[in-house]
């Protein structure tokens, strides 16, 4: 038992040590960014990421650095990664809009229905972990109501608690399914950014197949299938085709 405690204490200490090291790395990088030393800033941000951390802020800063170096595809890649982690962050949306206005391709998005937009903004209100926490909270609340329902002798209290318990249980089921969906989404890396300056999209995973259309660096794709070295992709306006996987980077 004592050994266990000491391990736990050590772990905390260790994590604390790492945290301060990361902070100083990020601090340095932020300073370098402000001074215009973007290459060095990128190096330092990358060091933190290489340690196995993710963070929307970190990705955002990387995106900024790449933008300042005029490396638009990398910039978009990191902004998109940041957005996966923090879908409702205004700064990310804003910068992404600016960068996307500077890439060669302007792909018209198929407009979404208004309730889908509402749903998305609601769905993106919390991260996976926060949705999971909400799920647990809802579950506990519904259990409390059910408990009161079971124990109460008075008829009125029993009825109220019964319905509240049912309501919160339904909310729990709902938020559980949302968390699950979000969890699946976060596990699935199915979007990519084009890194080759010009690429011809083919009709099939074969170099000799028919050219369908041409896209340029910085464009966002959705990967729908994979055959050998080829990805089947779909672009925002609905166009579908195949490209070599080496020409894109997955978000």
């Amino acid at each position: 038992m004592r050994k266990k405690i000491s391990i736990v204490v050590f772990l905390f200490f260790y994590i604390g040590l790492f945290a301060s090291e990361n902070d100083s790395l990020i601090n340095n990088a932020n300073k370098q960014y402000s001074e215009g030393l973007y290459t060095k800033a990128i190096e330092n941000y990358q060091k933190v990421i290489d340690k196995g951390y993710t963070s929307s802020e970190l990705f955002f800063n990387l995106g900024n650095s790449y933008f300042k170096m005029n490396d638009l595809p990398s910039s978009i890649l990191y902004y998109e990664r940041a957005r996966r982690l923090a879908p409702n962050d205004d700064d990310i949306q804003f910068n992404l809009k600016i960068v996307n206005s500077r890439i060669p391709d302007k792909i018209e998005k198929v407009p979404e229905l208004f309730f889908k937009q509402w749903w998305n903004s609601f769905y993106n209100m919390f991260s996976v972990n926060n949705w999971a926490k909400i799920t647990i909270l809802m579950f506990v609340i519904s259990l409390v109501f059910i408990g009161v329902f079971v124990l109460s002798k008075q008829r009125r209290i029993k009825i109220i608690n019964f319905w509240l318990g049912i309501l919160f249980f339904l909310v729990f089921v709902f938020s559980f399914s949302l968390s699950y969906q979000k969890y699946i989404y976060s596990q699935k890396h199915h979007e990519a950014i084009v890194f080759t300056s010009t690429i011809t999209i083919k009709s099939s995973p074969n170099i000799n197949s028919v050219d369908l259309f041409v896209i340029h660096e910085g464009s966002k794709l959705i990967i729908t299938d994979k055959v050998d070295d080829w990805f089947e992709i779909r672009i925002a306006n609905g166009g579908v085709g195949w490209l070599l996987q080496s020409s894109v980077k997955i978000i």
Partner: protein
Amino acid sequence: MKRFFKILIILIISVSSVNAQEVKFTASAPKTVRVGEQFQLVYTLNGRGSNFRGPRFEGFQNLSGPNSSSSSNVQIINGSMTRSVSNTYTYYLRATKEGENTIPPATIYYDKKKYESESLKVKVISKGSTSRQTQQKSSSKQKNIKNRQIQSPRNEKEVFLEATVDNTNPYMGEQIIVSYRLFTKVAISSMSINKLSSFGGFWSKNITDENQRLSQTTEHINGEEYVVAEIRKIALYPQMTGDLVIEPMELECIAQIRQQNNSQRNSRSFFDDFFNSPFGGNVYNVNKSLKSEPLKIKVKPLPLKNKPSEFNGAVGKLTVRSKIDKTELKVNDAINFSVTISGKGNIELIDELNVLFPPDFEVYDPKITNNIKTTNTGVSGSRKFEYLLIPRNSGQFVIEGVEFTYFDVLEKKYKTSRTSKYTINVEKGSGVASNISYSGVAQEDIRYIGTDIMHIKKLPIKLLKIDNYFFGSTAFYLLLIIPVLLLIIFVFVWKNLKKKHGNIALMRHNNATKVAKRNLKKASSFLKENNKKEFYIEISQALWGYLSDKFQIPRADISMNSVNEALTKRNVKPEIIEKFIETLNNCEFARFAPGDATSMMEVIYNEALEIISRIERELR
């Protein structure tokens, strides 16, 4: 009179002698020309001709002509006078076709008689052939220069054109100077530049003063003395990096080779009179076309290291100054603000300055004036940008200092020079002037001057371990299961506890009436036995016990007061409480009272029975 006749006779004789003179119509042209070379074709008639008809030229291009001129000559020798008149028709031709070309004869009428010149054969040789220098017959008959074909100097280097550049490895935008110099050992009477070099990839500026006479110096090359004339000097500013070639310059000149006493062969030693018109001896005009060597320039890119972002290509040694005519003014008054860049370098190439004017100012495009001096060492001067500013709103504004960055070639460093900043106080205009800005709808939308991305996020930054998802983790499921278990345990424990605790109190409560009745029953049996002492014990037990059980008052605490309190709390009617207390009192009293014990016992018994049943009813 006699004398008059004498003169008349002489005149007649002389005229007749002119008439008697043989009429000659001759043509002359060089025997050999090079392709592309200019030459003269001259027809001469020793008399006044008319109706000249020139030949048709094949293989030659007629540049100009026929240009006619006439001259007359009167000679009086030993009292006898000869008068000669000549007409010349001159063509300037250029050979276009290689080979033996024939110029057909021309015709002219003289004294109603038609004369025909001889046809000429001109050999046209190729351009590159240098073995034989072209010769030309003298163009002016008046100078009486012998038309003689001479052998050109064997040494090609008698006359040559040299192009030199002061730096073959400049930075982009750095000034280099190309000078074209003519080296000659012979006199040059005239020259014309046929083709200037094209300076692809350069911005060029001629720095030769066209009006000035050519400067001449002498130089010794391989022991030979040359006169050197600087024909042209051009300052170049490379506009791209890499290998650039300055195309050769081509010029044509007429070298005058003087020959003395027909000593044709050892001509070299006499070619020491330069650029002078020869007044003695025989002079041969030799037409030469010269070509300089192409120059290869390797242009270095400007160093990328420490290159400031605002650098716009200025190279040289430059300074920047700014001037403002006023800093205190009223709304809608104009300010003249000027920035002058001066120094040595490619100042004419500076297009725009990065001046930050307050956004509320109306700024007109700058008027740019150049004051460029070209000297032998290159281009220097100043370029002035004059801005007209009109503040449209009052307030205090700042025109930031203008930063001007250039590349210093000598120190190989980027340098920034900065002007001072000006603070401008704009007061509200009065009267008419202020009305202008407020007429109509004066409100403006906020103007965005630029767009940029949002700044980076500062610490604290939340770091997450990759793939550290709370959802689906053990902790997540434990947190779902544990509350369920807790609830079950809680319900279970709660029910158990309630059972345990609730049993005694509840039983006693529920059984209070029963116990009281049992006690009363006992009391009634004692009443029958007329056992006074036991009867009263049972009665008081029944009453006190009932109260204690029913209202959960511990037996030790029970008293008249606590009974009163407990019953009042239960909203029992005061008369019932009174009755109850009276019954209790009666019971205590009767216990020790002497007298008819039996009847008293019966009354008490009934009273107790009645009060308990009444309380029961009341509490329901």
